[in-house]
């Protein structure tokens, strides 16, 4: 244990890791603070750069950039009422109301402080949850993996803030995309239409870059430019945060726990965590009437929640290759590329690398406090950059980055195609995250499914015979039927209320 910890320290105390982490932190803070550029996009655009780094440095950049971007989305949220990332959308109104009351320092300070605390709580959950789950997961056969993957996909459709049917359709589209290529049980070209470039299948990373970056540039073409940030002098940012921690320690803990749970659920990430925690804070508050008028309580809980979900999203990713959120979906791609294939054996064979990941998360969250304060003070200058200078650079990075992944132009075509697909889906209420999950997990679902079917000689029964498999199966089927039950319940309730009012 101690030796692994020392090994982990040795792994991260190289100049490469330190510089990569610092640079990625600054990058994450800047991208996160620019409205319209999300944390997922920041991470996706980092991937081509990670190719040229050592495995630990590559993961360091992702860990640092994603944590920082989620916090710095709070900055324009509080100062302009425009959230920098979707994860800050839940409480942007509240934070802006505080700024108008002259409490901008308190709102932003709460953002930094409780984000850092939440992030560290998330890491602790990763450290505590992952190893025992890995023990259990070692005994999993393909049947369990199949149900687990299915459960993950179903969770993603359940938590989508849209019609569950559209979410399931999105998931199927993603699975269909993963069918392309010759990497299938028969090794035959499938849906390649004779195009050689399609033989290797659709790479998840260019698809993600398209969905999250190009689609965003497309949306920017049709939306007006956000207003510039008023320049202002800030007082002490951290003043009063300790008092808030003591006053709202219960809310903070609840935010952490909710964030951790939502992070572990596949497909649900920081934005979901913030929405749920903010709503919960209002529901259980002693003074709910103050919410919306510039009250810090909801900020504390939601800020503690969205950063906690970032680290706990890595739990299913590292254990099973099932992404906890869209950022983790990208991280999985990088892990595979770097030879750290997700799976329970990662915790025994590459234990020092796992400890290194924990340590990097902790360092990133501590680093967030000084860098975050600096960022708040210079944010007014960074946000001066008009969209018409930022978006073209993003476009160039998309083109060059997707080319760099395989050194061929087909990657660029993939990015363009998925930009259009992502844009159209989003505009019509089809959740993009469900499709992304389908693309990332498709090969794994199919392998587990077909191998299980071959083992069982075409029979369905063995899918339910093993105890763990049966439990997972019940959960997956329950998740599938849940929207139906909600719908039936609503239908049953509706006539009664109609009758009641008509009398």
């Amino acid at each position: 244990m101690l030796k692994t910890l020392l090994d982990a320290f040795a792994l991260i105390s190289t100049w490469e890791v330190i510089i990569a982490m610092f640079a990625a932190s600054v990058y994450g803070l800047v991208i996160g603070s620019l409205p319209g550029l999300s944390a997922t996009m920041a991470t996706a655009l980092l991937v081509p750069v990670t190719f040229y780094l050592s495995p630990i440095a590559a993961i360091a950049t992702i860990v640092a950039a994603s944590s920082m971007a989620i916090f710095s989305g709070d900055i324009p949220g509080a100062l302009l009422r425009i959230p920098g990332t979707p994860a800050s959308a839940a409480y942007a109104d509240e934070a802006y109301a505080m700024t108008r009351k002259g409490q901008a320092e308190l709102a932003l300070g709460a953002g930094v402080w409780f984000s850092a605390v939440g992030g560290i709580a998330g890491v602790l959950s990763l450290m505590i949850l992952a190893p025992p789950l890995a023990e259990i997961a070692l005994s999993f056969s393909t049947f369990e993996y199949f149900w687990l993957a299915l459960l993950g996909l179903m969770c993603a459709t359940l938590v989508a803030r849209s019609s569950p049917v559209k979410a399931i359709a999105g998931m199927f589209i993603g699975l269909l995309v993963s069918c392309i290529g010759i990497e299938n049980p028969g090794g035959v070209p499938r849906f390649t239409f004779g195009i050689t470039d399609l033989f290797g299948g659709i790479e998840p990373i260019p698809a993600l870059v398209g969905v999250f970056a190009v689609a965003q540039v497309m949306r920017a073409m049709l939306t007006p430019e956000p207003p510039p940030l008023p320049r202002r002098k800030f007082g002490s940012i951290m003043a009063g945060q300790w008092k808030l921690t003591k006053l709202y320690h219960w809310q903070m803990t609840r935010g952490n726990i909710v964030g951790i749970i939502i992070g572990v659920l596949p497909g649900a990430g920081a934005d979901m965590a913030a929405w749920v925690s903010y709503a919960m804070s209002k529901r259980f508050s002693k003074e709910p009437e103050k919410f919306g008028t510039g009250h810090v309580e909801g900020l504390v809980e939601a800020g503690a929640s969205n950063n906690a979900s970032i680290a706990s999203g890595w739990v299913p990713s590292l254990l099973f290759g099932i992404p906890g959120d869209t950022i983790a979906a990208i991280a999985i791609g990088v892990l595979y590329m770097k030879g750290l294939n997700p799976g329970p054996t990662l915790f025994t064979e590459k234990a020092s690398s796992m400890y290194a990941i924990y340590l990097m998360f902790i360092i990133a969250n501590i680093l967030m406090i000084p860098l975050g304060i600096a960022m708040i003070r210079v944010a007014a200058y960074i946000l001066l950059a008009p969209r018409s200078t930022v978006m073209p650079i993003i476009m160039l990075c998309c083109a060059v980055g997707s080319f760099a992944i395989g050194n061929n132009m087909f990657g660029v075509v993939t990015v363009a195609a998925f930009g259009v697909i992502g844009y159209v889906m989003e505009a019509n209420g089809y959740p993009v995250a469900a499709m992304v999950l389908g693309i990332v997990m498709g090969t794994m679902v199919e392998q587990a499914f077909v191998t299980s079917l071959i083992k069982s000689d075409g029979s369905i029964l063995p899918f339910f015979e093993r105890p763990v498999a049966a439990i997972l199966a019940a959960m997956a089927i329950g998740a599938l039927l849940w929207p139906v039950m909600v719908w039936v319940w609503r239908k049953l309730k509706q006539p009664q209320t109609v009758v009641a009012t008509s009398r």
Partner: protein
Amino acid sequence: MRLPDSVTGSFLVVLGAAAAYGGWILPPVPGQPVGPNVFPLLIGMGLALCGLAIVFGVGHSFEEEEELVPLEDGQAAAPPPQGKLQGKLYGLRALLPPALLLFYVLAADRLGFIITAAIMVYVTSTALGAKWKLALPLAALSPFAIHLIFGKLLRVPLPAGLLPTPW
């Protein structure tokens, strides 16, 4: 780009049916009961079913709360500034980024990275409302910066084309 549910749903039915058929006609693997054809067949059928459900408006009641959620960039979809004047053409502007990426694919090998990138930056920047005073220097400088990072530092083989970089 908001299409009626009946259109997107019908499209999914067609896509799902095509996928299922495509899976069906794949050759089976000799001596293996389950081959590469099973998975696309199931997915295609599932997708077609979802498409049908969407056409008939199943699950639409869940979408109501979506209106409360801001878009990813945090703004409600505001009406375009000169929307009425340009009408339908305005919506097509959204297709500019993917079109520019395809232009990059076609032109980069012949024109070289620097020139193609400069054109992309200039067009995107102007489309987003930048004056030429801003767009031109940006288009002149940013390709070199990107080339320095990706081409020089990360050794991505970017095409030189007509204008080789000085390094």
